[in-house]
């Protein structure tokens, strides 16, 4: 299916919007009517046709505009992309992985021509046609990780594996749910997860790390994570929190359907061949409440999840103050009917709203 790229913004006038197709393929993160942290990982081996799981690196209608937003964030704050000196080889691994996957999965959009170590990369949506020497940094306009992640949706953490731990030693982070690469770079798995409530006590991070350390080349894994964002703002960074935090107070019962967005991260994990590191793409999808409510199952479920979410999680995710208003809105879409298992919209089988 050819993709029509939106011309839209994720700041100022917020012209971001989801097409009907984008709503139907939105990665709704709740597979049942309640939510708690868990080691929710599975193999990343495709998925239903046109779902965000189908391709290894999903490209959607927001691609071109998201890359424009990333360039703006980096111009304002170059520290959002950093790589410690020993991570250059892992950066080449990331570049190769993304280029080969995209060229295979989207041959109409991307082409990679390899002649020994002379590579030609064509990115049609962004109008790029570059020839460079693989593993020679001087032949690219940026370092390899920065070069390719300026052309790929989602944030990227590149992890070095040593001492039975993962170390966040490089990254491109401009669409984050309120954490700072500049602060966290160089930390290990337990250190950068330190602020997360409840999950340490549940042993989740110990088990999750064990899983990650054993990921093999060619057998990537994935999980979903989520939070809430007022306005379709991609760059909810701590760096700019003093500027965007105030937007959380602009919700009203009238505008909440349009302004309040469910923010979902499709997180994937790939082993890197030369460096033996891991790359962790964190792909952000936004969907306005009013668009989610067009799927009856999601309306019922989102109300129940948000209503019953432990206070610690609502606080950590930053929407505890707005939860009552969210529930007033969401309760209109919950008629008490049971919901089917799993995250898919099930439009053909789930009954329409009965009130």
């Amino acid at each position, binding site marked *: 299916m050819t993709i029509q790229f939106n011309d839209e913004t994720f700041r100022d006038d917020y012209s971001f919007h989801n097409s009907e197709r984008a709503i139907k393929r939105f990665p709704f993160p709740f597979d049942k009517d309640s939510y708690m942290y868990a080691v929710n990982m599975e193999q990343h081996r495709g998925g239903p046709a046109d779902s965000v799981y189908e391709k290894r690196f999903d490209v959607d209608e927001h691609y071109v505009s998201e890359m424009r937003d990333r360039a703006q964030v980096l111009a304002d704050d170059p520290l959002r992309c950093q790589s410690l000196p020993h991570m250059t080889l892992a950066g080449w691994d990331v570049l190769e992985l993304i280029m080969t996957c995209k060229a295979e999965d989207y041959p109409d959009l991307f082409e990679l021509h390899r002649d020994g170590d002379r590579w030609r990369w064509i990115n049609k949506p962004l109008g790029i046609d570059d020839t460079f020497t693989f593993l020679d940094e001087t032949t690219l306009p940026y370092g390899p990780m920065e070069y390719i992640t300026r052309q790929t949706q989602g944030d990227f953490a590149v992890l070095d594996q040593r001492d039975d731990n993962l170390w966040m030693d490089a990254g491109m982070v401009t669409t984050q749910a309120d954490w700072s690469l500049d602060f966290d770079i160089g930390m290990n798995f337990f250190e950068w997860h*330190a602020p997360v409530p409840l999950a340490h006590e549940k042993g989740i991070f110990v088990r999750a790390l064990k899983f990650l350390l054993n990921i093999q080349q060619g057998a990537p894994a994935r999980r979903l994570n989520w939070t809430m964002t007022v306005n379709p703002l991609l760059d909810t960074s701590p760096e700019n929190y003093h500027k965007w935090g105030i937007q959380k107070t602009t919700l009203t019962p009238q505008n909440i359907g349009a302004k309040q967005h469910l923010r979902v991260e499709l997180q994937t994990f790939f082993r890197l061949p030369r460096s033996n590191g891991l790359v962790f793409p964190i792909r952000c999808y936004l969907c306005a409440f009013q668009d989610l409510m067009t799927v009856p199952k999601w309306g019922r479920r989102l109300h129940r999840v948000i209503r019953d979410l432990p206070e610690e999680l609502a606080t950590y995710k930053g929407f505890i103050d707005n939860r009552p208003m969210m529930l007033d809105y969401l309760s209109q879409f919950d008629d008490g009917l049971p919901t089917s298992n799993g995250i898919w919209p099930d439009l053909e089988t789930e009954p329409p709203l009965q009130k």
Partner: protein
Amino acid sequence: MSKFEFPASIKSRPVYGTLEARPGKHHLMIADAEGAEAIMDIATPDLMAKTHIIFISRGTDYGDKLRALNPAIFYEGPSYAASVPRIQRVLQDAHMGLQVYLTGTEGLMGQAMREAVDAGIPHTAIQTEHRGSVARRMQCVHCKGITEDVETDPFVCAHCGLNLFVRDHYSRRLAAYQGVCIDAEDPGNVPEPKGIYE
């Protein structure tokens, strides 16, 4: 002076111990202010004969007491920043088996720890003991400026002037805790500053 018991905290926050004299031919002790007392607690003539002490007094009068221990080398610097080139130089030709002792404020220990680790000293050869002020070295997540010796929460960033709250999230690379704007969602509503552990 009794030692401050830090409350339990999150996993990025450093945990400090109690210095003990370790066997070894070479010892480097870096301390500020009341950290001198931790050195005096473990000092023996034999240990001191193999020890290089780098001390920043910060207005205390422990310098003479440390000198009186007769360390092999004694240096008293006017500030931590001024002593950094010396610390780097000493670490540069650290012998195998050098034992490093860091004691005093968190800011001193964190920064000297970074120098030692960068110089390749194994973690197992570095000990720490907190003494004295519980003030923190803070990075403003917004402007990236470091404010030293922060005693209250919230506090004003010495660089950009924002009112910041004091997090427990700690970066060893920056040797600093994170400060985040406290009144972003309610501009001007800044609570009265309190001591960090009050």
